[in-house]
């Protein structure tokens, strides 16, 4: 009799713990997810929605009022300065994107395809990343003594005798902004491409070679298509960073080249919140279009 009650007692107890565990199993991951999701909604989604909302507010001299209007939007698209900045941002973004790809791809090809030793591969990639340990802003500023009229590049070129007069379009021009950005962001292109190239099955290339394919044909038909997901990931990284840039432009152009990011900074500085918000929304739309366009090229979810 006593054994019986004991047994039922344990059974009942087991049931409650099982129920507890079941509850945790069913809803446990919501507890795990909640902090992160709440954080992101409060501090990422809300600010972005606020930006969209404020872009329709009325701007007075030093304040904004929640009376809805499209005045700031009209100003943006009817002003040459601001619309011009949009075009300039797009032009610089496209130039930097093409250059990072053209300059980065051969290096990635060497690291990913021609270096077959994994350790050497890692060492080369780490060597590319080490300059990132210097503060971003100081790295940008270090381009000034490189590009200036009496800068390192001009000194070297004059010493070798390639030029007799120093080139003065190197600094404080659009060119200097492009050089600076390419150098800073090219690694984000090299990394993903090298990663994809290193994953290519070598027997595939050997088979093609045995069947008599030329090196160029192998590259065109096998290597390049297989590295395309890496190119797209790299292009997304570079695009997002270049489109949101303003520091490189203000440091290397002497504030002559104004990107959308620079205009946001000046507008916030003069408390033109509604207008800054308009530019922010424009920038977001451009970026979304670029990313969606790039994702059209390759289906990343399937490829990675």
């Amino acid at each position, binding site marked *: 009799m006593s054994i019986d009650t004991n047994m039922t007692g344990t059974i009942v107890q087991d049931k409650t713990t099982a129920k507890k565990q079941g509850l945790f199993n069913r809803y446990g*991951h919501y507890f795990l997810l909640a902090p992160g999701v709440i954080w992101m909604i409060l501090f990422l989604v809300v600010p972005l929605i606020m930006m969209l909302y404020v872009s329709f507010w009325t701007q007075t001299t030093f304040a904004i009022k929640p009376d809805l209007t499209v005045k700031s939007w009209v100003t943006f698209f009817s002003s040459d300065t601001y619309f011009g900045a949009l075009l300039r941002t797009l032009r610089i973004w496209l130039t930097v994107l093409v250059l990072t790809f053209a*300059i980065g791809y051969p290096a990635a090809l060497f690291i990913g395809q021609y270096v077959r030793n994994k350790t050497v591969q890692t060492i*080369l990639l780490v060597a*590319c990343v080490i300059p990132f340990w210097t503060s971003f802003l100081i790295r940008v*500023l270090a381009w000034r*003594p*490189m590009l200036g009229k009496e800068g390192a590049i001009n000194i070297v070129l004059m010493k070798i005798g390639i030029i007799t007069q120093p080139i003065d379009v190197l600094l404080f021009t659009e060119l200097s902004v492009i050089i600076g950005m390419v150098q800073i962001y090219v690694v984000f292109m090299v990394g993903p491409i090298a990663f994809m190239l290193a994953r290519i099955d070598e027997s595939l290339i050997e088979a093609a070679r045995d069947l008599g394919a030329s090196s160029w044909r192998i590259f065109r038909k096998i290597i390049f298509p297989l590295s395309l997901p890496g190119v797209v990931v790299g292009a997304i990284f570079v695009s997002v960073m270049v489109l949101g840039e303003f520091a490189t432009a203000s440091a290397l152009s002497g504030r002559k080249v104004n990107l959308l990011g620079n205009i946001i900074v000046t507008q916030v500085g003069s408390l033109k919140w509604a207008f800054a918000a308009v530019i922010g929304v424009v920038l977001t739309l451009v970026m979304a279009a670029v*990313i969606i366009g790039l994702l059209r090229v390759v289906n990343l979810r399937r490829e990675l």
Partner: protein
Amino acid sequence: MQDAKFLKIGLGTYTALFIAFLYAPFVVMGILSFQQGPEGGPQFPIIEWSTYWYQHVLGFAPPSRVAPLPIGEALARSITLAVATMIVSTVLGTLTAQAFRRHFKGSGFVFYLVVLGMMVPGVLLGLGMALVADQFGIPRTWWGTAFVLHVVYTYPFAFLVMLAIFNRFDGSVEEAAWALGVPPGRTFRKITFPIIFPGVLSAMLFAFTLSYDEFPRTLFTGGSEVTMPIAIYGTFAVEIHPNLFAFGVLTTVFSFALLTVYGLLMMASVRRAKVRISGLQEEIE
């Protein structure tokens, strides 16, 4: 075949030049940090080699017309902020990645929501947060509005690192511990944590360095008490001096020290795991 060899040499030379290109500003910074001071500017030629600007950064140089960098306060703020960001984003990243170990409804939404945090440019997020703070009367401070944005930025990195770690994680080890009646807390401490430790360390490293160098988000939300990157940005408008380069060299050396510590911890953790496995094998045998 001759062709392929030629191509390989060509690409190798190109890669060497490419890496040189990546290091160029770094080398220039290193050379110019030894410029003579306080008259020597941040340009060539070097008037005379000296360590003046290092003394200037560290506060040993006699006062001159060049204002000292606000090393003490700004650096202390930056490091405090980076440590706080590191802790919070690693914890959040680990929790979220742990939840992703099983399939659940809406996982795609959560994934993109988190990853969005590293994709949205700092200038947009900074602007949005500044607008929110302005409208709701929240004071903009480096430890408040800027801190939450730093976490938004670094938490996705921690999450992705932990996700990669958990993907390679054999869940049956934990199940075995549970089946043997080890309480969950102890299982986590004795089994789960040692296995995921290298990932946690990488996540922390990512979060710390990203936050330490973060600047567009902080620019709009950091308020009047500046962090180190904002202090450097402040010098953009006025004349720059080689003390910035000396500071750059010092922080890079500091980063290397940090990276070395990380490498050593990583190696130690791998070795400990190996020893433990061989010990277990001996016991079984």
